[in-house]
């Protein structure tokens, strides 16, 4: 059966048969870099298109339908337009930081793609602290946003950046706690091991109620962390016109935009990996025939299906709910989500120690 695992293995064999080890590593690294950039661009295009279609569907509109069949090239056209636009730098802006900020945000989003297992045994870098790597790196992205807000020399941007700083730092904790509840069960930070531990059932089902609570908290926290409505305090176009990217135009704006969508993809991918079994197919206990059919679906399809389902849920939030106020947002985190997730973690630890989970 053709799978991503086999393809990568055969490429590796082909290269090692003919070349020295250093050359093999160099070539493989450049292939991976190329693939990562392609994936980054492709994901951005797909997710922006998906957002447009989902929002159009919710808002009884048609959405893009002119450029290409069903409008699938609309995002490409927009990207070209943005690339050709002047990258405007406002007077009095800190030019270096202003230009650096979109790249910081984008590079961090790209780094986060590394440990994610896209299919069975198919990840760029399956390091032993994969989940820790993701939580650590993703919290750096706030620096890019603060940089953009501060360097723009615009009060709206500054307010947006400050909001974003408070928000991301707060919700990081809840997201971390929710992730920890699953780590407690698996006893490993490595993504491949977390997925393997769910071969007999997804943690969402195996982990009793605490896992469900952790899943809900995780989804809320990451919606806030990626600055998506109803927690889009940093942008808040009706309050702060555009928040931290008010002054950005052209490709610099496009990079912020792309990074936002890549971040959504990553948090949903992590959510799918931790709670929904990553690339593991859906199995029901002793239904041999059913399980066999499920195994037949490629693992990459399972992974992407789960991830895109979570992305859809997050988009659904955005087009349904009004925005919270900044103090309500922080209240929600510090007064509700954090205590709940702390007790949830304790409860889950108890379950893990006693071995009550399935």
């Amino acid at each position, binding site marked *: 059966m053709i799978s991503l695992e086999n393809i990568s293995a055969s490429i590796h064999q082909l290269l090692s048969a003919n070349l020295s080890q250093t050359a093999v590593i160099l070539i493989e690294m450049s292939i991976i870099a190329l693939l990562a950039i392609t994936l980054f661009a492709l994901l951005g295009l797909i997710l922006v298109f998906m957002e447009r279609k989902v929002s159009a569907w919710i808002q009884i509109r048609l959405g893009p339908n002119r450029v290409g069949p069903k409008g699938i090239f609309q995002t490409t056209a927009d990207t070209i337009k943005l690339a050709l636009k002047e990258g405007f730098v406002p007077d009095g802006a800190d030019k270096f930081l202003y230009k650096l900020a979109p790249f910081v945000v984008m590079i961090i989003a790209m780094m986060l793609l590394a440990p994610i297992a896209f299919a069975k045994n198919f990840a760029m870098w399956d390091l032993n602290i994969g989940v820790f790597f993701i939580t650590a790196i993703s919290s750096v992205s706030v620096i890019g946003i603060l940089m953009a807000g501060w360097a723009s020399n615009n009060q709206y941007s500054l307010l947006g950046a400050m*909001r974003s700083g408070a928000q991301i730092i707060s919700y990081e904790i809840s997201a971390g706690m929710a992730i920890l509840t699953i780590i407690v069960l698996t006893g490993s930070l490595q993504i491949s091991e977390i997925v393997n531990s769910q071969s007999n059932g997804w943690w969402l089902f195996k982990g009793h109620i605490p896992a469900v609570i952790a899943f809900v908290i995780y989804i809320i926290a990451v919606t806030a962390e990626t600055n998506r409505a109803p927690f889009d305090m940093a942008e808040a176009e009706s309050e702060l016109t555009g928040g931290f990217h008010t002054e950005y135009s052209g490709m610099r704006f496009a990079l912020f935009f792309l990074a936002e969508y890549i971040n959504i993809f990553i948090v949903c991918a992590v959510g799918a990996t931790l709670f929904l079994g990553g690339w593991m197919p859906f199995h029901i206990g002793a239904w041999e025939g059913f399980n066999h059919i499920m195994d037949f679906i490629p693992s990459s399809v399972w992974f992407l299906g789960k991830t895109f389902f979570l992305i859809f849920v997050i988009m659904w939030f955005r087009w349904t709910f009004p925005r919270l106020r900044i103090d309500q947002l922080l209240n929600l985190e510090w007064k509700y989500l954090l205590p709940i997730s702390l007790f949830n973690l304790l409860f889950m630890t108890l379950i893990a120690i006693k071995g009550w989970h399935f």
Partner: protein
Amino acid sequence: MFEQVSANNNGELVINVGPQHPATHGVLHLLITLHGETVTKLEPNLGYIHRSIEKMCESLSYRQFIYTTSRMDYLSSHINNHACALGVEKAMQIEIPERAEYIRVLMSELTRLASHQLWWGAMAMDLGALSPFFYAFREREVINDIMEETCGARLTMNYFVPGGVMYDIHPNFVKRVKDFIVLFKSKIAEYDELVTGNVIFQNRMKNIGIISKEDAISYGCTGPTARGSGVSCDVRKNYPYSIYKNVQFDEVLEYGCDAFSRYQVRIKEMYQSVRIIEQLIDQIPEGEFQAKTKAVIKLPKGEFYTRVETARGELGVYIVSEGGTTPYRIKFRSPGFSNLSALEHMVKGHKIGDLVAIMGVLDLVIPDIDR
């Protein structure tokens, strides 16, 4: 003019909100002083869309000046036209045919519905929920189509003339309005479900923008803004004009004094408008739609004041006549202007997000404020 300052001596941030800002719904300029996220001072700065309508009216005849008022509060243009037509009729003592009165009230209430729908969508958009805007427009479009069929316009109607209405209603009018009422009744429940019942929305709206009954009166607030504070000020009830004294409807009063009360007043007013339309739609009498008037209208010497209830509050039209074909002086008392004056009182001490919510619920139409 304002000096461009970014921070004052107290470490407070001074921000220009508008004249180009998504939440001001037009060219309103607010100069706000922020302490962190809290608004400590707010100064509205008007004049960006001033077209000197009052001055223009002085050189227009009594048939013509009505058309400028469609451009004031463009969301309730029928009702503005009504106020002016009433003023001329009162001065000339013209008897209006019964049929014209029915058409006028029906049109006014449809306008009120359309206006409140747009407000509902735009307000939800201010709060960050983008979808309600499209749902509101879905139904508003039906009203616009009905208007277009009869008046030939979708926004600046210019349909009411001194003595009645310009044309008779379209043959489809009654049927289409009835269809719309059936449709709208099912959709308004959806509005409530989507926005009113939402926990986030209620938390955003409750206990912000508080204005007591006394303050509302002293600021001259009218319309839903004042009725949300329990001030009985519905002109249709207190000083009935046209055939409003013959129809059954309730004046909606809420006593919460906050933004959510004002929100509820508007939502409940939609139900009342539906009630008025339902009572009248089957009763439209046959007959003339316009009274016979002279080709050139000359108002007797004197001062005339009429008021109507627009979707935003009380619109007063004050005409000073010297006996000629054009008014000597015209003054419009627009509801938006007085309601805006209370904005600083409502917003002070609240967050910048609340400013947007409070402004959204005030339902400001800037051309109405500036004229």
